[in-house]
């Protein structure tokens, strides 16, 4: 496991029971696969109770159920065993929140696309796109007459925004991925200033998008996805910056869904480069013709 996937292992006492601090560390670690589902569910529940962000429960439930069923079916076929459903739940709920459509079918299709992409678009055993990012972007591209992304706001007020940001940051910090969020946010703010300078629009107008709820989901659940980020810390920071940079280019071209598309473009490219680089690093060096074989090489 690479350093970014390093997890806090609950400490075990001499009697075999985990200590309280061990439990806390485990709870906020990547090993706890229920952490992301719990966090996103809490955000959704709070937003729904306070502001009623969902037009109907049925659409969100449809997205979640479709994601779970697809994961079960495809995962069972693909791996020959029942898959863990935590990531499918996060994908489904993300689609349920971020897809906005008067129709029901985009929620089902978005979830199915998201989960299926995990199994199809793979290189060397790694999937390239964050599943929900892939599903939502494809829906926005091919079904724009029926699908939009989240426009509804969670009140636009400061307190709920701060709570989500603080809670999200705390969890992400514990999961050792805060540097990704921080890099992206700082890059966004810096590039917002650049956009403001280029367009002549007020700086706050350029900052405005990041204060919305779509960004909270985007930052805490998409760009930090352990399965689709590159593996080194510095690489993750570079990719986060590149996502912000691509987003700026898209924004200057008036793309409404610039962050989603930026991640859609940058993330697989970064993953492919890393996969290629790792393959190059781990490949056995070819011996010059006529030279004696390296001892032991190729014999496992």
């Amino acid at each position, binding site marked *: 496991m690479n350093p970014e996937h390093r997890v806090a292992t609950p400490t075990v006492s001499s009697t075999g029971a985990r200590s309280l601090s061990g439990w806390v560390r485990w709870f906020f670690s990547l090993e706890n696969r229920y952490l992301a589902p719990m966090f996103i569910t809490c955000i959704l529940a709070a937003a729904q109770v306070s502001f009623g962000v*969902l037009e109907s429960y049925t659409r969100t439930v449809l997205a979640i159920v479709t994601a779970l069923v697809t994961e079960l079916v495809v995962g069972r*076929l693909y791996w020959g065993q029942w898959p863990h459903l935590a990531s499918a739940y996060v994908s489904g709920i993300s689609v349920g929140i971020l897809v906005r459509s008067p*129709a029901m079918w985009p929620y089902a299709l978005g979830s199915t696309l998201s989960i299926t992409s995990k199994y199809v678009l793979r290189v060397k055993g790694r999937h390239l796109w964050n599943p929900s990012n892939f599903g939502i972007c494809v829906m926005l591209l091919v079904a724009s007459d*029926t699908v939009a992304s989240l426009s509804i706001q969670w009140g636009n*007020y400061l307190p709920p925004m701060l709570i989500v940001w603080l809670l999200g940051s705390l969890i992400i910090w514990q999961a050792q991925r805060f540097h990704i969020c921080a890099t992206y946010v700082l890059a966004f703010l810096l590039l917002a200033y650049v956009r403001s300078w280029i367009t002549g629009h007020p700086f706050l107008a350029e*900052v405005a998008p990041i204060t919305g709820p779509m960004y909270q989901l985007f930052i805490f659940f998409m760009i930090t996805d352990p399965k689709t980020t590159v593996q080194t810390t510095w690489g993750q920071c570079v990719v986060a910056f590149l996502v912000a940079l691509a987003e700026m280019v898209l924004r200057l071209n008036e793309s*409404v869904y610039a962050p989603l598309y930026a991640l859609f473009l940058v993330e697989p490219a970064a993953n492919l480069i890393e996969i290629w680089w790792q393959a190059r690093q781990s490949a056995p060096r070819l011996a010059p013709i006529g030279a004696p074989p390296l001892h032991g090489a190729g014999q496992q």
Partner: protein
Amino acid sequence: MKRRILGLGLSIFLVALIAMPVVLKRFSARQVVIGAVPNRDTVTARYGFCFQEVAKAAGIDFTHQAPTLDARLAHIMPQIAAMGAAVSIVDVDRDGWLDIYVANSGEGSHNRLYRNLGDGTFQDVAVAIGVSDMNQPGTGVSTGAVWGDYDNDGYEDLLVYKWGRPELFHNQQGRGFVRVTEHAGLPSWINANTAIWLDYDRDGRLDLFIGGYYAEHVNLWQLTTTKIMPESFEYAHNGGRKYMLRNRGDGTFEDVTEKLGIQSRRWVLAATAADLRGSGYPDLFIANDYGVSELYFNEGGERFREVGKQTGVGFAPKSGMNAAVGDVLNQGQFAIYVTNISEAGILLQGNNLWVPKAGTAGESLTYDNLARVMGVELGGWSFGAQFGDLNNDGYLDLYLTNGYISADRDRSYWYDFSKVAGGNTTIIADAQNWPPMQGRSLAGYQQKRVWINDGAGQFFDVAPAVGVTDTYDGRAVALADLWNRGVLDVVVVNQKGPLLLYKNTVTPDNQWIAFALEGSVSNRSAIGAQVRLFWNGQEQVQEVSGGSGFAAQNQRRLHFGLGKHPQIEKAVIRWPSGQVQTLPAPQIGQVHQVKEPG
């Protein structure tokens, strides 16, 4: 090997999933092409009606003017000064021919009263009759007008609501008008986009509801701050207050808003009143911009109770811009139509058609949004919409106008709009933070919708086929039988655009009947009176309205299409006073003038 086959199958599956929306779109596009119809005769034969735009030929040459507000709003002026075109129908002199009143919004501009000469033409008599000069600098500008006989003298009086000082004019028996604003005790300044007449307490005198949009302390020509915008695109509570003004019966009105329990400060764009529960009292439906709609149940004229969430209509916040009621399923109950914003790929709120849930009524009344199911959901940046049986087939159709700002066709403001609309309160609420529009369009040049009701729960858009091809920035729609032919014509007013008069031609096979009601115990305008018509095993209810749609008022006369070979059983009139009057088998093909007994 097995894994490879599985991988190939999944790949094909993924490609099929991606292709699915494209295939669906192509399929539906083909249906539209098939639906196109070439000429008027074929159109009339197929749909039962056809429109012809005749405003100029009828002597109406009106183009709406928008206001020029405080210079600090100059960069987004088209967005702020985007409303004001309004229309209302009245028979101002009781000559039996319906007249048209049109609001204008430029500083110093004149409102128009197009008197129906009865020969197919209209003449502007607003100046002569004294209801023209409403937009003097310093007094605000008109955003709408509604007619109601508040003193029960038999002539319709005029309330002009404004972004500014509302004005009340007393009708001097059709010969002229006297301004009675001060005597009436109306509020000094409301940035209103809607007002309706209703008799909420059924005392026989018409009361007034006025809904504020911008807060009433904001003078849009002399801003003290640029923080006048909604604090949220979906949850704004910093709009204008609402006013329920009770008619004391002596020409004055008292503010009973708070006493009746109406306190919200959402951004009202439209309101209508109708007895939704069969209680005998008019309930109040309010469509709010930047938030949820509100539905107030009238509790015996003593109090209004907000039941939006309870009934299901006040749950999802959208951009409500229209409130109209109609018995779309001929089931003796009103559905409510609310318009919102839909822009492909950007914002898909969808319009709402709130239909009473089966088995619910009275206090347990709840609604389902059947807009998508019934085919009236997507109407662009929708504004005014009205129900009316346009082809006299016995089912209420729906006319919708739309389009926000039509400027440069090649440059859109949507990106910048969406960028700021999603921002935090401190950003969105300050007009200074909004990027300049610079001549760009925002949901402009949109195709209107004329949805015909097939009577089986489906509406079909036939707008281009029946002759509605304009793409102006439509605001208000009013329906009226302007030539007394037994058909509903359509008047549309457009922001910074011309008034359009769509004269309707209906197949003579379809029959009709109409009722012109006059109250005696009830308010003389009979606003709130219901006619329940029973024919051919069907039942349809209509109610005389004191304002509906967006900034509009239809004719007070109730028009029923009957379809072919109708056998009318009876018409049951329930007057606002509570009296019930039954007309057995009324004659078809005529307007029945009915005066309330007593």
